[in-house]
């Protein structure tokens, strides 16, 4: 389980670099973010949430039942949108109201 960073979408703002609790993300010579050790990712999605460009997606390794779906997210006001794109490109979005607490 790890993250994937799109070079095209990344603008080098460093927010993910600062958000990662494991110091795993660095900027390369072109100022694009990359994860130094994909195997070291904890899967906390801090970077996914902090990136304002939706450049970072999150996936499950095959050892965890991953089949190629990717998770991205963005926030609009109180609402957080979680978009899951499966291997075939089908999208599904789950919206969570941040002002709502978990019912469980």
């Amino acid at each position, binding site marked *: 389980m790890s993250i994937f960073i799109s070079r095209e979408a990344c603008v080098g703002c460093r927010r993910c670099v600062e958000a990662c*609790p494991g110091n795993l993300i660095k900027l390369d010579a072109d100022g694009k973010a990359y994860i130094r050790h994909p195997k070291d990712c904890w899967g906390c999605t*801090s970077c996914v949430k902090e990136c304002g460009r939706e450049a970072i997606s999150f*996936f499950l*390794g095959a050892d965890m039942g991953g089949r190629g779906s990717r998770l991205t997210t963005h926030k609009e006001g109180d609402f957080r949108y979680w978009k899951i794109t*499966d291997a075939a490109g089908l999208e599904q979005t789950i919206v969570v109201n941040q002002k709502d*607490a*978990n019912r*469980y």
Partner: protein
Amino acid sequence: MERERIVTDVLIIGGGTAGCYAALTIAKESPGTKVVIAEKANIIRSGCLAAGVNALNAYITPGQTAQDYVDYAKRDAAGIAREDLLLSMAEGVNRVTEHLEQLGLVILKDEYGAYAARGKRNIKINGENIKPLLAEAVKKQKNVTVINHVNITDYLLADGGIAGAVGFHVDERKAYVFLADAVLCATGGAAGLYRPNNPGFSRHKMWYPPFNTGAGYAMGIRAGAEMTTFEMRFIALRCKDTIAPTGTIAQGVGARQINAKGEVYETKYGITTSERVYGTAAENLAGRGPCYLHTEGISESQSEDLLKAYLNMAPSQTLKWIESGRLPHEQDVEIEGTEPYIVGGHTASGYWVDTDRRTTLPGLYAAGDVAGGCPQKYVTGALVEGELAAQAILADLGAAGSPLRRADEKRRRLREERIATETERYLGEYEAHLSSGGSPAMFTAEQLEEAMQKVMDNYAGGISTHYRYNERQLHIADDKILMLQKMTEKLHADDMDELLHVYELKERLLVCRVVIAHLAARKETRWHAFAENTDYPGQSDEWLKYVNSVYRDGKVKIRFRELTDTGKQERAEVYGG
């Protein structure tokens, strides 16, 4: 290597839950006191709270008292927990909860406007942004300076106490020397000691943050601080693969634990935290695995709420449900026990502290998962401990003729000299690993880490032995860990990132040795799974005492303490009453 020297009144090591709250407390109660937080990552999302949490697990709900919480936690720990620590923690959890709400945390309310409870001790929140909320509050304080991306490795000892700490920047070739009158250790617990559930590509998909590597324990051990209850390991019952919490499913939709035959086994083995893990391991051992949380048949809307709840704290579980093509109402959720962790916020391993969270080393305080004796503190308990430690620091610094404030000129000079020698020694070690004269890359930190995890797994009660061990195995484990410790001396680091991994490994190995010594010292099975000693399978009243240790001359020296001990004696000696 470039170096920076920073002088402050109070140094907080680790800007996590407890560390941030200690800084906020000092800012509020003594705005003139200078505080520096040295944090390995960036306080914005560092530590346990990175992914968010979905409940406050320690809260005194209406009709309950702080003493009820103490009684529960003590029972759950089979008697090995400090009542004085538990009580001072439990008395503060509602206070800090209110403060969290003021900072912006969303807490679910019932129809009367009271916090909505989940069971007797939990309240429901939306804790996705709990860490950024704390971090923002800290950044607003004028007397608090946060230095991010600095990994602290060692305390500076002088004058019979702790006078500061040294560390290095995780990217730049730069060393930091901090000098402080008081130091608070708040580095969290230790993960990655044992071979994890997913040892391959997803090796870091563990419950506890893989970046909390036991630095605070290791520094304290090396400096000779007394440690307690390292034999009470914490093993979590988690969703298979994703290691996501199970409580949300179990308590949220009332799902029961069932085995492969569909039999409910959760009450068969007892209901304490360790017995629940043990039951699952025992069912597997008896050939009745895998085990599940029985969610099949819950309503579709419950299923949807679960998807959302997990996005707020463990998004990989939501993704897993979706990847599998079957949502929680369509399939049971497989569960497993994790590898053992050392974490004083769930179980009781950590620094031996007095009621005010002073360690046995003058000038050093501990709070949160790194502090021992006080299990089940969770988020709110860590915050309270941060507050209590901060108050003790302010009291000690303010006391007339406080030995922490070094006024005497001659003593100060001696102290400076001592600090200078220590600093050179530690910084010399960094340089040695970084210098090109290091060994060729036959062994890397990664390789030795895998070796360590294999040893702990096979010989010190990991997943592969269903958490069981005996004296012979512990002996083998100790020999092998000692060998690996020696091998770390020659490790070469190409850059600061590699240096970080070398130090994380060294910390873990030292913590492993203390864990092994404690497991061997408690000659009984006080807790199933957490400390399952097959040479002594039963519980015995003779062992109603604390197993503590002090590290001296390269050896872990065990000492026992009575259950009534509150860590006070040391204080009297140190602060003259």
